[in-house]
């Protein structure tokens, strides 16, 4: 009797710490998993903003219209296939210039909604004044 009675408490005292340990480990693993997922999603959003490519050729941009989201970071890539060109979105304080046959980019986050007409910011010839890019910024 005394042996049986004395054998019970040790069994309980061994299992309880094991349970606690398992619980702690599983909680920690779950927390780490959640943290990792959050970290990955955040870093993905920061590391890979949306890229929009625009090609410039006397005297037009292709595409001629782009749509951006307010507050969403974006990289505007300007590629020239002839002479030097540029894009200036005055209302958003954005400008990128590109040399003859080259490519250049600018990263920015649209801060206000609206439709803005960006013009070529590098004089490129007789039709320079008609070279425009319409930029829509939506919520």
């Amino acid at each position: 009797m005394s042996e049986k009675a004395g054998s019970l408490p040790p069994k309980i005292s061994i299992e309880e710490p094991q349970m606690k340990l398992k619980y702690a480990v599983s909680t920690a693993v779950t927390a780490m998993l959640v943290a990792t997922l959050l970290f990955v999603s955040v870093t993905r959003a920061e590391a890979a903003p949306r890229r929009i490519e625009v090609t410039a050729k006397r005297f037009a941009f292709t595409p001629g219209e782009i749509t951006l989201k307010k507050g969403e970071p974006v990289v505007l890539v300007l590629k020239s296939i002839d002479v030097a060109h540029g894009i200036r979105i005055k209302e958003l304080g954005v400008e990128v210039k590109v040399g003859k046959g080259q490519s250049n980019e600018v990263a920015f986050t649209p801060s206000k909604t609206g439709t803005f007409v960006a013009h070529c910011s590098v004089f490129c010839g007789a039709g320079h004044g008609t070279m425009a890019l319409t930029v829509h910024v939506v919520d």
Partner: protein
Amino acid sequence: MPQAVFLILGVILIAVPLAMLSGILIAGCKADPPGKAETAALNWAKHKILVHNKSQANPLKDNAAAVADGKEAFSHYCVACHGLDGQNTGVPFADRMSPPVPSLAGNDVQSYTDGQLKWIIDYGIWPSGMPGSKNTLSDEEIWSIVLYLRHLPPAGSLGEPEMYTH
């Protein structure tokens, strides 16, 4: 003998009048400076009749950034005739055109309204060598040039256009 007569008559009737006509045309095409009366009459006609768009206001705000934009746009090719300062500094042919290239800081130009200056830059002005720049420059660039014209620097302060210095 009759052939010689026809040759002489041909020279008299065709070659001589042609030579005279050529002489008149050449002399008439010389880019002589216009007289005072001609200049006054044309200036009056330009300001009152020929140059339109008198009432349109400049949509750009008059600030340092917009004036700097105008100076930049002006440098695209306006400087070839008007100089960097708009006052013909360094332009070798400014006095040899008919009419001569005016100083854009002078009263003849400054007395146009902003809308008229925009119209002149858009469409050019006759009689002069001033070409129209509509579509070659954007509306915004042209309005910024109008702003720059209202804030021209002192004559000679910007030096000569690079194209005339090498």
